[in-house]
């Protein structure tokens, strides 16, 4: 907030407005909040208290608008969000105190329970009742409240779910996944993170903090989360029991936030499942030895060839028979081996067009049999199905994280070939845990030939706040259709034709998804590329309620004029071309589209062309018959001429008679 009058005047000019209310002061950086860059902000209506603008990660959560309505005393409120200054910003309440990562806090069992566990659990319970998860509970995103004691949760929506969570704060299954692939999870994942936070606050130095995420996941799967994190630490009995439950590897064994919020009733759920049973003898998979099923599942993912070998030789089945507590597992492993043999025979016989997909599905099925709680493993990537969009968006942003070809295979295998549905069915049957799945419409989107376009379609459909990554508009972020159209208009002013690239096309398509179709030509697969671009841009112009776009329309002309080249009739075409140029000058994309897709006009002109073709055939035949016609005409004319001579002779006779008589 501006303190002095001069500062106040400067504030009036600096920054930009979000929701016509919150002014973001771009020249006043603030300390980071939960690891995110911050700027000072001010409520122009002077209703909100102290607020800040938090810069979001581009792949923001799709449920961001839902957080606008959520208010809880133990959670920083999310007031508004919008684009500006080259980024996307969340207006949030400013925390009153320091983050727990830096605050000096009295650490005692009772203080942890009353000042951290209880308020945070109440906030989580509030989120749970509203169907949301926080997924950003870590020391730098939990703050001390105004009283300097009780904890307050920081912003949840400035990044994809669990995107900035250290692997230690994630369950082993969350830690297996890349940060962008963890998914929104369940409230039990927040309970787990809260458990780790309590342990962290107690110990002030969690073990294994320097290990790679995969190593942490492996340790947690091998030893159990609690054993990995607490080690030989001696905790007060009440805290120890609670943390054991909260850090259970099975989400269903963790207490609910409502149980934790009422400390008395929390005792009822202290029944955290122990780590998976350790076998008497390990199973060797390559050079590694798996002592329990979750670890074996992890090794199978890391060494698929060895896993298939163990399955085919029956070693896996035998090991399960000796160690598994559930006989159904052995039956499933047997079925899997039979299916594998059938698949191999079929592949050898007819060849497999989708061999890669079959192999991925087989491996995912094997992992799911060994560890029903494991996330989806496909194309060498661990992911929660609902995080597919975030993962792909990050891959498109930072290609080394997931190369485009692999991302394309991921989309094709999971969405177009039904791999995801098959896995969800399997997973639901095995674990009974509901799986967050991506929207159904993606299956339709993925069922197209152009894999690059499909990839971007999926990315933009699943990430409604992701700026367009088109190279056409350079570095300036394009958040919505309005910015896209305005950017293209500006680009057109620099001259040269404009052709939409795959990101731009997919972005417009995804953002138009909820808009009513603006033209009957929309979605027509047989249209040439330039016309499809025009369909999209005209819809974009209508949806964004922008005025004329003469620059863009003129820039599109170069690619649109060849469309008219196929129109029958030179003069008719020229009339249309002149009309098209006139409309382009006026910047009206929709009438241009109507002109180019005028089906009745086209049919009329084609009918005229058919008529002209018939007439031309008749004329050509007449020309061919011309010598014969000429011969007949000659004979007739000579006869007529000689007859005329005869007639003159007759007249001469009569004249001669008359003269003689006179």
């Amino acid at each position: 907030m501006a303190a002095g009058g001069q500062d106040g005047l400067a504030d009036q000019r600096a920054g930009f407005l979000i929701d016509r209310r919150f002014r973001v002061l771009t020249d006043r950086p603030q300390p980071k909040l939960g690891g995110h860059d911050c700027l000072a902000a001010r409520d122009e209506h002077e209703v909100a208290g102290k607020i800040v603008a938090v810069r979001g990660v581009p792949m923001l959560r799709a449920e961001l608008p839902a957080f606008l309505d959520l208010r809880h005393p133990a959670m920083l409120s999310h007031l508004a969000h919008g684009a500006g200054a080259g980024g996307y910003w969340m207006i949030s309440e400013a925390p009153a105190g320091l983050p727990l990562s830096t605050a000096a806090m009295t650490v005692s069992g009772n203080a942890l329970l009353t000042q951290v566990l209880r308020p945070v659990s109440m906030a989580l319970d509030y989120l749970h009742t509203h169907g949301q998860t926080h997924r950003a509970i870590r020391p730098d995103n939990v703050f001390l409240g105004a009283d300097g004691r009780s904890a307050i949760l920081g912003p949840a929506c400035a990044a994809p779910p669990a995107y900035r969570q250290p692997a230690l704060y994630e369950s082993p299954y969350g830690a297996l996944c890349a940060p962008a692939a963890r998914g929104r999870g369940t409230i039990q994942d927040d309970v787990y993170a809260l458990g780790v936070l309590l342990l962290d606050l107690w110990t002030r130095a969690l073990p294994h903090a320097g290990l790679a995420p995969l190593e942490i996941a492996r340790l947690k799967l091998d030893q159990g989360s609690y054993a990995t994190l607490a080690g030989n630490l001696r905790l007060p009995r009440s805290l120890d029991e609670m943390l054991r439950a909260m850090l259970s590897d099975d989400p269903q064994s963790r207490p609910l936030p409502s149980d934790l919020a009422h400390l008395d009733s929390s005792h009822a759920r202290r029944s955290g499942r122990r780590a998976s049973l350790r076998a008497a003898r390990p199973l060797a998979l390559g050079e590694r030895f798996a002592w329990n099923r979750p670890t074996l599942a992890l090794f199978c993912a890391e060494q698929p060839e060895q896993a298939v070998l163990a399955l085919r030789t029956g070693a896996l089945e035998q090991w399960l028979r000796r160690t598994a507590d559930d006989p159904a597992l052995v039956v499933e492993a047997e079925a899997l081996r039979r299916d594998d043999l059938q698949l191999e025979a079929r592949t050898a016989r007819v060849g497999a067009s989708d061999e890669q997909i079959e192999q991925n599905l087989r491996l995912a099925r094997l992992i799911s049999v060994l560890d029903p709680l494991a996330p989806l493993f496909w194309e060498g990537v661990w992911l929660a199905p609902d995080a597919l969009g975030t993962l792909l968006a990050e891959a498109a942003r930072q290609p080394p994280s997931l190369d485009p070809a692999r991302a394309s295979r991921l989309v094709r295998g999971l969405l177009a070939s039904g791999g995801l549905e098959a896995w969800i069915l399997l997973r639901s049957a095995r674990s009974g845990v509901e799986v967050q799945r991506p929207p159904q419409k993606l299956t339709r989107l993925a069922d197209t030939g152009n894999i690059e376009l499909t990839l971007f379609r999926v990315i933009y459909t699943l990430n409604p706040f992701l700026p367009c990554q088109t190279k056409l508009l350079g570095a300036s972020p394009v958040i919505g259709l309005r910015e896209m159209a305005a950017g293209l208009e500006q680009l057109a002013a620099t001259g040269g034709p404009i052709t939409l690239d795959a990101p731009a096309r997919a972005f417009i398509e995804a953002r138009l998804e909820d808009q009513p179709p603006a033209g009957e030509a929309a979605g027509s697969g047989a249209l040439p590329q330039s016309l499809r671009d025009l369909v999209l841009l005209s819809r974009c112009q209508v949806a964004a309620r922008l005025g004329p776009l003469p620059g863009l329309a003129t820039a599109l002309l170069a690619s649109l004029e060849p469309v008219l080249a196929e129109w029958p009739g030179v003069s008719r075409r020229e009339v249309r071309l002149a009309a098209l140029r006139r409309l382009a000058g006026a910047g009206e994309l929709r009438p241009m589209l109507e002109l180019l897709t005028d089906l009745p006009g086209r049919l009329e002109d084609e009918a005229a062309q058919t008529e002209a073709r018939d007439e031309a055939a008749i004329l050509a035949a007449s020309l061919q018959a011309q010598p014969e016609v000429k011969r007949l005409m000659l004979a007739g004319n000579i006869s007529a001429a000689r007859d005329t001579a005869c007639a003159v002779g007759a007249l001469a006779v009569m004249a001669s008679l008359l003269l003689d008589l006179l």
Partner: protein
Amino acid sequence: MARARAASGDKATARSGMRNWVGAGACLVTIALLPGAAVLLAASCPVLLLALLSDRDPARRVFRAVALFSLAGLIAPAHDLVQIGYDLQAGLRVTMAGAATRVWAAGGIGWGLSELAAMAGTMTTHLQAELREKRLRQKLAALREEWELADGGHS
């Protein structure tokens, strides 16, 4: 059928023979009764005969023109012959007085006129055909250009 055709041919031959005999009879009667007219007609014949022999047209248009013009040239000498008398002397006098030349000239004019008419007809035909062809070609070219049709008429 062959018999019927033979019978029909026989009848035609018989009719032609009859006609020849009637013509020969009429000539003999004319020579006998009107020797002057016979001399005049005989003097007028060469051009007619020449036209008759040279005209290959079934309709004999050249011959008809020559005949009509010859007749027009014959009217005045015939009138003179009627006034002088029908005997041989009168016929020879009229003939020698330039009647033959007049009849031949009239026949020649008729012949010439017929040929001139034929030439005019030929020229007119050529002109008409050329104009028609030009018109057709222009129309075809316009259609092909407007609708971008190939030479075969296809677009």
